[in-house]
Structure formats: structure tokens, C-alpha cells
């Protein structure tokens, strides 16, 4: 199938002004500005097919938002080629953005002093959405996001999570073929996150909408994406099925256990103690040697357990391991 996104050797270098702290340096910088070049993207390649949900992950400052901004036509790249939906994003902006939806979790994309409904109606007219379609779709989205009570409240009075839900509605009202989500679940509570993911999945299956999602929440990735692209320091270090990464690297889980009393003599196959507290233990479980429920069974049988918390290996750790292997 023809690709919906095609990225070739994409590079982006930011030019910033160097300024050291202190008054004297501030005055100096007025007269002689020192430029500084930061390479945020160092030549990345990937392509995405229509209908995919791709997770775009990596540590802070890796270049995720930069990539999305370029793909959304907001930034000019320093080098390389990009083709999205037969457009070169940063050319013909007005025509291009008609076809995409973008949510920046960290940015305010709604009219600050007005209720979200006003922004929705603005989008209805700007994207030329027929009235009946608009009403129907809005009703559906309001219901699934659970925001019926807040769409008449000024945006400045909304909580972060409420704003995020409304921002997503605004970005998807016109049924774009392609959607970029940059940390969309930031600020959402657990229930809202679950609903949000369901919404994305149903949009994807019902309309074949393509999604490119960045997030620091591994749950988002696990629930939504079959494929992930991992970026680190402006370079892509992995592009492929999530399953592969999981089988290869997510072979451990971390158990955080609290006991009623001192845990004496804890020992189990495949377990390694990370941290020992007075009434608690932090344990890494190697899943290839021991199943997680075996460990829990053992714990409950042998000890008075108050609480168990199971965590995945943090994505940052996985990236580091991939990175090391590449070298």
C-alpha cells in the first residue's frame, strides 16, 4: 500500500543564542550574540502506512516533538525530504492542515477565554463540516470523552485533563485521515486514559484513521500500538513491532512489595533483590526463569503481604539497552 507518511534523511538544527548567567553576560550578549546550533534530528528515516497506529517513543529531548512539528507543517526542516498525504507539509499549509489533526498535550489549542464549544464551532466553519455531521460527531465525542458538563465553561477554568479531552475533540471533529498526538494522555486520570485509548482505537478501526503518537506512558503504547519507533538523541534506534521489543527486552518486571513485618529469607527462582527496606522489598523478576504469578503465590503463602505493585521495565532502560547493543 502507498505510504501516508514518508520521511527521508530528515534533519533539524535549532539555532539558539548562547547566554551565560549573570548581569554582565546579559549586557555582553546584547552587543555580541553567540549563536549555538543544536542538532535535534540527525537524519531520520521512516514511513507509515494508512491505518497504522504507530508509537513514537524516546527519552526527553530525543526529538519526538520536533519530528511531529515538522510533519504537521509547523517547522521547516534543515535537510531531508518529507511527504505526507501527497503534501510537503510546510508548503501549502492552509490546504494541508485540512487533512490532518494534531494535539499537543503541552500547548493550549482552544480559545482561552471562551468555552470549548465556541472553538468546536469555529472548527466546524473553518473545516466546512456540514451542520448535521458536526452535531452527530460532536455528540458522539462528547459522550465517549465524558465532557458534556464542561463544554460550556471557559477554557481557562478547565483542569488540564478536561482541556486535553476538549483539545482532542477539536482536533478530530473534521475526521482527518491522519492524526498526530504529542503526549495526549498527559494529565488524564486512569479512567480517562482508558476511555481515551478506546476512543483512538475505535476511530482507527471505524474510519481507518492513521495515528502517530508520542507518549511517556508505556500503557498507552501497549494498548494502542502494534508498531513502535524509538528515537534517541535525534536518531532512530528501533523501528518495528512492539512484540519484538517486548519479547526481547521486556523480560523483567519489577515488584514492589510491602509486608506486615520483616521479610526474612526471601528467595525465589529468577528473583533478584533491588532494594531492601524495613518492611518492604523491591525485586526484579526475570520472566524467562519464573512466572510473575508463581512469585506472587510464593509471597502470599510465605509472608503477610500488605501490598504488591507490579511495574514494567521503564522504556528509558530498554532504550539504553538497545543503544548499548548497537554499539
Amino acid at each position, binding site marked *: 500500500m502507498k505510504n501516508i507518511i514518508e520521511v527521508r534523511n530528515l534533519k533539524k538544527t*535549532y539555532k539558539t543564542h548562547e547566554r551565560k548567567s549573570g548581569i554582565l553576560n546579559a549586557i555582553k550578549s546584547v552587543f555580541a550574540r553567540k549563536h549555538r546550533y543544536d542538532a535535534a534530528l540527525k537524519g531520520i528515516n521512516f514511513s507509515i502506512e494508512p491505518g497504522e497506529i504507530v508509537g513514537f517513543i524516546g527519552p526527553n529531548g530525543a526529538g519526538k*516533538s520536533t519530528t511531529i*512539528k515538522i510533519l*504537521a*507543517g*509547523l*517547522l*521547516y526542516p534543515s535537510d531531508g525530504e518529507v511527504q505526507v498525504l501527497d503534501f510537503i507539509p*510546510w508548503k501549502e*499549509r*492552509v*490546504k494541508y*492542515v*485540512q487533512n490532518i489533526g*494534531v494535539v*499537543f*498535550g*503541552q*500547548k*493550549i*489549542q*482552544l*480559545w482561552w*477565554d*471562551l468555552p470549548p464549544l*465556541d472553538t468546536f*464551532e*469555529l*472548527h*466546524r*466553519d*473553518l*473545516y*466546512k463540516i456540514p451542520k448535521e455531521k458536526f452535531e452527530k460527531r460532536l455528540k458522539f465525542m462528547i459522550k465517549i470523552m465524558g465532557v458534556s458538563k464542561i463544554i460550556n465553561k*471557559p477554557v481557562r477554568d478547565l483542569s488540564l485533563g478536561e482541556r486535553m479531552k476538549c483539545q482532542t475533540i477539536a*482536533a478530530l471533529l473534521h475526521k482527518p485521515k491522519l492524526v498526530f498526538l*504529542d*503526549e495526549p494522555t498527559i494529565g488524564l486520570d486512569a479512567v480517562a486514559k482508558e476511555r481515551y485509548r478506546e476512543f483512538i482505537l475505535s476511530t482507527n478501526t471505524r474510519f481507518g484513521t492513521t495515528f502517530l503518537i508520542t507518549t511517556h506512558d508505556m500503557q498507552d503504547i501497549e494498548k494502542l500500538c502494534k508498531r513502535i519507533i524509538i528515537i534517541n538523541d535525534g536518531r532512530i534506534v528501533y523501528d518495528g513491532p512492539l512484540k519484538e521489543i517486548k519479547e526481547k527486552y521486556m523480560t523483567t518486571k519489577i515488584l514492589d512489595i510491602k509486608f506486615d513485618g520483616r521479610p526474612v529469607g526471601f528467595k525465589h527462582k529468577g528473583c533478584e533483590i533491588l532494594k531492601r527496606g524495613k518492611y518492604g522489598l523491591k525485586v526484579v523478576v526475570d520472566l524467562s526463569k519464573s512466572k510473575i504469578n508463581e512469585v506472587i503465590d510464593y509471597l502470599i503463602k510465605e509472608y503477610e503481604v500488605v501490598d504488591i505493585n507490579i511495574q514494567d521495565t521503564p522504556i528509558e532502560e530498554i532504550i539504553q539497552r538497545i543503544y548499548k547493543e548497537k554499539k
Partner: protein
Amino acid sequence: MINKYLASIRMGFKDMIVYRFHLYMSLITAPLSLLIYYYLWKSIYSYAGQAIINGFTFNALITYYAINTIIGWFVYSEVDAWFEQNIINGELIADLLIPVNLFSHYFLVHRGYSIFGLMVETIPFLFIAKLVFNIPIPGFWILMAFILALFFAVVLEFMISYIVGLTAFWLKRITGIRKARRTIVLFLAGGMLPLSFFPQWFQDISFFLPFKYIRDAVVNIWLGNYEIIGMLQIYLLQILWIGVLGYIIYLMWKRASKRFSGAGT
């Protein structure tokens, strides 16, 4: 098609409703400052012992200030402040993601402000000015001629503040420039004193600059100081300057959008 433009105007209108109290305040302050001008110039006229100073009768001068106030409300633009803010915090992104030309969107939102201002400021103020200060209201055709010139004036002031706003792509913080722009344009446009009060050389230069066509010339149409030829000349110069400033905006935008870095996250 037309809906698309009305949508931007509607947003400006609604946005202003939020700030309506601010506008109500100007309904108190505007007549008050007119009152101050009234007494100030009354004493100047009686001191000078002349009925006409620099071509202005006392009543014409008060009218000049009153109409200037109204023009000020119409041409009011904060687009330069929007650029400064949106570039620094990166929220310009939101406006670049909607399928609308940025200039026309911002312009139309401002027209939403104008329409709201027309209702809560201009019309009540004209009423007061007519009753209290005996401001003359011109006949139909002069009024139409005034409105046309006012429209071009609105575009001109908007373009100037748009250009100032675009400099934020290079300079980031432009609070100083913005404030200076406001005062300088107000002064050169004849917003503080009619241009005929200035030396001849100053008036000669003003003729070739865009500022006069934002206020002085427009008020003088209201006052009936121009024949048809004079009005056509004003329109011509207004349109000419709109073309020049529009071209500058076009060139600046081409470079500015390449510089935009979408700061933050």
C-alpha cells in the same frame, strides 16, 4: 465560504463579550477626556482671541477629538502583542494548525472586536457627543465616504501592527517596540493634534507617509473639509500604502515562518 470568514469575526465578537466591562469603562473615560479637551481648548481659543486656529473652529476641533476617539476604537489592534506572546510560548502553533490564512484570521477576529465596540462604545459615545458637545453628524454621502476611508484606515493600522508583530520572530520580546509604535503612530497620524497644527515641512512629509491616512485625513472627511477630488486622493494613497505594507508583510512572513521554532516541548 462566507461562513469561514464570519466564523473568525464571531470569535472576536464573543471574545470581546468577556471583556465588556473594560469597554464599559471606556464609555466613562472617553467623554471625560473629551471634556478635558473641551475646557483646555476653550481657554486657548479665548486667550488667542481667534475664532479659527489653523483652520479649525472651536467646534470643529472638539469634533476632531471626538471622531478621533471613535477611529481609535475601530483601528485598535493588539495583533503585535499576540505575535509576541504566541511566539514566546509557542502557542502560535494552534493558529497555524487551523486551515485559515493567519493574516485574514487575525484581521477578522479584530473586526469582531470592532463590531462589538461599535455597539457598546461608538454609538452610545456619538449620542453623548452629539447631545453634550454638539458634534455635527454629516449627511449620508459624506458619512459613506467617511466609512470607506475608515475601513482603509483600519486595514492600514492593522498592517502596521502586524509588521511590528512579525518582528517578534527575530527579536522575541518586543514590548518596547510595541509601545513605541502605538505612540508614534498615534502622533504621526494626528491622534494628538491635527496635522495642520504642525509646520509646513512636517505636513509635506506626512502627505507621503501612511499615518495621516489612519486618522487626520479620515476625520477631515467627516468634517467635510475635502472635495470629491481630495477624497479620491486619500483613497488612492490609502490603497497604495495597503499594497506596500501588504508586500512587506508578505516578504517578512516568508522569512519569519522559516524561522519559527515552535518553542517549548
